[in-house]
């Protein structure tokens, strides 16, 4: 149980019933606790008393853990239901129709399961004290650096002499703010698709010189694809990239045209580099 609330019931008459709800694995666990700590005869549960104690205990539950809280609330409802059935006269019904029967069965079964799991835990601990083949890890592999070099120093020196040092070159990196935005490229793509059902990627770059336009247009295309507003099609690597409008009448039926090397060049020209 992963209840985040550690609420305590108000200390009243039943001080020993101070309950941290998060300690319990679930409603059955809590019920058993209430029954066992008070030495209640499980085959004759005082339903009214237990119900009110149960409700007190779960009062602190918050709706934040709906999953866990729901399970406790479900049990509360069951208890209240049983309580109401106990109040009703049961004319002509045989005694074995006790409304508590199913709950008692569940509690006993749960208690038994808990006992069994305790025994399994000790079996697990016993087993973990025995070891079989392969437990002790193998000796670590010899370090790579310990492998003797088969090269002589002369060879290394000779090789070093043949190395030509590269000319130091001045490289300037200019970092500028992004002047081209993805949003404007998205608008550009969508505008183009208003006019026709598809547009070739390179076409969208005509008139723009900087590489950043190509990059942003491509990113905008990916973003719009992610938002399911268009398709991107390319028949094979480096072929022309086609952007397709995505709407109902234009489904996957439209195939991009066969792209040849021509298209390839088109695209290259379209992306100024």
């Amino acid at each position, binding site marked *: *149980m992963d209840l985040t609330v550690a609420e305590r019931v108000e200390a009243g008459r039943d001080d020993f019933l101070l309950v941290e709800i998060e300690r319990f*694995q*679930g*409603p*059955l*666990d809590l019920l058993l606790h209430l029954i066992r700590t008070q030495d209640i005869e499980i*085959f004759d549960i005082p339903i009214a008393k237990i119900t009110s104690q149960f409700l007190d205990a779960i009062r602190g539950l918050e709706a934040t853990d709906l*999953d*866990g809280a*729901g*399970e406790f609330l479900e*049990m509360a409802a069951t208890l209240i239901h049983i309580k109401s059935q106990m109040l009703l006269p049961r004319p002509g019904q045989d005694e*074995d*129709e*006790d409304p*508590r*029967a*199913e709950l*008692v*069965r*569940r509690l*006993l*079964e*749960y*208690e*038994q*399961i*808990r*006992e*069994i*799991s305790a*025994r*399994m*835990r000790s*079996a*697990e*601990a*016993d*087993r*973990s*004290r*025995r*070891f*079989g*083949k*392969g*437990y*002790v*890890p193998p000796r670590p592999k010899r370090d790579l650096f310990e492998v003797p070099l088969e090269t002589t120093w002369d060879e290394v020196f000779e090789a070093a002499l043949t190395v030509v040092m590269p000319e130091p070159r001045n490289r300037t990196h200019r970092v500028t703010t992004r002047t081209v935005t993805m949003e404007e490229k998205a608008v550009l793509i969508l505008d183009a698709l208003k006019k026709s059902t598809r547009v070739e990627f390179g076409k969208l770059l005509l008139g723009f010189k900087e590489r950043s336009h190509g990059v942003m247009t491509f990113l905008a295309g990916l973003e719009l694809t992610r938002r399911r507003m268009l398709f991107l099609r390319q028949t094979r690597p480096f072929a022309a990239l086609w952007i397709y409008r995505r709407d109902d009448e234009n489904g996957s039926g439209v195939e991009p045209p066969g792209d040849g090397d021509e298209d390839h060049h088109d695209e290259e020209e379209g992306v100024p580099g």
Partner: protein
Amino acid sequence: MNPHQIVEAVLFASDAPLTADEIARADEMLDEDQVEDALQYLRAEYDDAGRSFEVVEVAEGYQVLTRPEYAPYLERFDNVPRPSRLSGPALETLAIIAYRQPIGRIEIEYIRGVGSSGVIRTLQDRRLIDVVGRAEGLGRPLLYGTTTHFLEHFGFKSLEDLPRPEELPIVLRDRTPLGADEDEQARIEEPSVIGDLFEGEPEAAEAGEDQDVADVEGETETAESG
């Protein structure tokens, strides 16, 4: 070469339990009975010689394992993290599955009173349980059962090794639970199938629960993938 020497060689070379039948494959002369005899011989020999290991019956087979008293020495080599101990909820769920297999998630949740899909997944990841079939009925829910690895993990010879309900301190037999008829009472005394006693769960409650749990699970799965 004696049969027990062959059997010993096979056991020595294996890092997992082997059944007598599997061991017998080592030689045409060997049959299961001879293997059993050889195992008996080896056991006595290891005991007499005070070896640090013994032949242990586990997971319907035999394996040579060190004796527990040597654990302190061997634990020093524990630089490979061993599978950690199971949590309370995991053990509880595993116990239910072990006794009631094949069993579906809804039934497990009814017995525990809490949602269990996460625990079931963990147990499956750790190969302690597996899907063993599908139930009839709506949605044909998956049924789970324990694996050989489960037996190995707990060092059980077989499922018969699980604690029997009548050995437990909880009184299930001395008194007829309210509403239990003679038939059910009889079944309580049946070992190893405590669960059968509780087969007649209210259909309506189960169906409702099913719905809830399914919804919740659907949500968490979407959350995970998103």
